């Protein structure tokens, strides 16, 4: 992990280190800047929320951090590896080995059973099907869906599908999990449950978690909140803790 000097002179290991990240999109009306020189450090085992209004660049930033989008300029260093220096194939392999994903729309494959969906990251890493199936069973039990392994995603509620997506994100023990609006499609109670689950797994496994969200109801699950506006990070702060926070 990257070590950076802090104000007090101590060092804290970093999972993610972004420097001067810029990204623009070409549209019919011209070039639209999405990121304007982002600098961001995410500590190891930290839960960081990226928040801000629609169109502020949150999704672009998380896409670049996750290595699925290339910036126009800047560096994106994950666990000491500069992703922009990697070839596309090496970046793909890096994602496979180090990053877990959970999406707003879950992105489960509807034709597959829940168990098959969950085991995909292990199969991508070359694990044999029986090994991956056993691990998927354990992961589903961990998210409380052990009895739903043979069902298809369409047979589950939104909250259950998000739990499946979380099991899929964690199954291969990645160092970083990126979540895009994990609770936006869920009611308050289910959203809190999902966040408690995410925090719990992150804490237990020492994983770094970056969450893009609009959902202010879950802010107190964050260690830090980075607020974005117009392609910049305008503030990084700790959340105002409410009573009964789901943090572990």
């Amino acid at each position, binding site marked *: 992990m990257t070590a950076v000097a802090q104000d007090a002179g101590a060092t804290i290991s970093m999972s993610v280190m972004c420097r001067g990240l810029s990204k623009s999109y070409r549209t019919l009306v011209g070039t639209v800047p999405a990121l304007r020189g982002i600098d961001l450090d995410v500590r190891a085992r930290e839960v960081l929320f990226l928040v801000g209004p629609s169109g502020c660049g949150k*999704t672009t930033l*998380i*896409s670049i951090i*996750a290595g*699925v*989008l290339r910036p126009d300029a800047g560096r994106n260093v994950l666990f000491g590896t500069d992703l922009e220096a990697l070839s596309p*194939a090496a970046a*793909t*392999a*890096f*994602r*496979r*080995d180090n*990053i877990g*994903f959970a*999406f707003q729309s879950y*992105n489960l*494959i*509807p*034709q*597959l059973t829940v168990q*098959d969906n969950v085991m*995909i*990251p292990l*199969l*991508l*890493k070359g694990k044999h*099907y029986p090994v991956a199936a056993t691990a998927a069973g354990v992961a589903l039990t961990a998210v409380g869906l052990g009895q739903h392994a043979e069902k*298809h995603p369409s047979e589950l509620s939104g909250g259950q599908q998000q739990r499946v997506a979380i099991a899929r994100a964690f199954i291969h023990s990645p160092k970083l999990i990126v979540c*895009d609006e994990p609770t936006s499609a869920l009611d308050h109670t289910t959203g809190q449950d999902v966040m408690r689950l995410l925090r719990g797994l992150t804490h237990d496994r020492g994983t770094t978690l970056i969450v893009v969200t609009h959902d202010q109801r879950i802010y107190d699950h964050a260690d830090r909140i980075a607020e974005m506006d117009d392609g910049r990070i305008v503030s990084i702060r700790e959340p105002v803790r409410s009573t009964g926070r789901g943090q572990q």
Partner: protein
Amino acid sequence: MLSIAWKMLAGDRAKYLSIVFSLAFTTLLIAQQGATLIAIFRSTTTFVDQINGIDMWVTDPKSEYVDDIKSMDDMAVYRVRSVPGVAWAVPLYKGSIRARLPDGRAQTVQLIGLDDATLIGAPRMTVGALRDLRVADAIFVDEDGAHGSLAYPAASGGQRDLTVGDTLELNDHHVVVMGKFHGEKTFASTPIVYTTYDRVKAFVPAERKLLSYVLVKLKPDADLAQVKATISQYLNLRARTKAEFSAESLRWFIVNTGVILNVGLSALMAFTIGGGIAGMTFYNFMLDNQRQFAVLRAMGASRSLLVQMVVLQGLGVTLLGFGCGIGGVASFILLNTSSSIDLHLTWSLIGSVCAMVVLVGTAAGSLGLRRVLHIDPAVVFK
């Protein structure tokens, strides 16, 4: 991951079955049309192909193909025998005549007259022995004819298969069935009757020339080209080897009939429509699953893995559809024994159809693969 790829396709039941059915339909139509074409071709040349043990067919010089019979004088046999290099030569008659059954039904039959002494050109017997043709008024009848249009009136009413000992009339001449044989079904599907050449001369209406072909065997040291040239130059007849006569007959049939065009058009339509439906459905499957492939790409699936997954999906449905289609054609051929021609599902036809169907699958898979390989994994966050 390849098992996941297959589950992704098979899990989308509607599209999966639609692709398999389309490819099976394509296979079935192309193979059935191909089998029909082969059967027609075979029936065109079967008369030449089934007579073995000779080196040449000699015909009238104007005769272009096997059924273009321009009769020769019987003396032609003797003249051919006089050509240096010819070991032996025998006459062969082919024509048609009306047969009358005891109940008064009349049926045109194909009459073949074999050389009385040697019976060269005899068919493959299923009932009776070849020597029985030497019995007075003897004829052989093909099994299909005996079962079909020459079925005999039964004593108890109705009809039964014509069998050994039954009698009928050929142009008012009394004949006795002394045997049956398996004859290749012909395009005309008329019954086939064999007898001896001398008997033919008694049966058919009086004509000055009756000889259809002269079958020739060469001496071991004879020069085939030289004998052919001699027959052509000095006898004003045309000599062709079995292969040449068969090929020329087939070529004439292809050039002078619309069979290739008609059967070919049907096969092309099957290929286009069935292949088009399968291709579009597979392409739609790829479009529908673009996001799923993007998710896999984001999670670290390499491009080569995605290619393998799409190839497996394409190849899987293609071979499954092909297998169902070929199975359907084979079942059709096995069950449809009453067809007027014998359909032939040859290995070369199966291979050709497989190649065509794989081409459809490859084209569809390539289009889908192109979409998959151009997937931007960042769409998973949109």
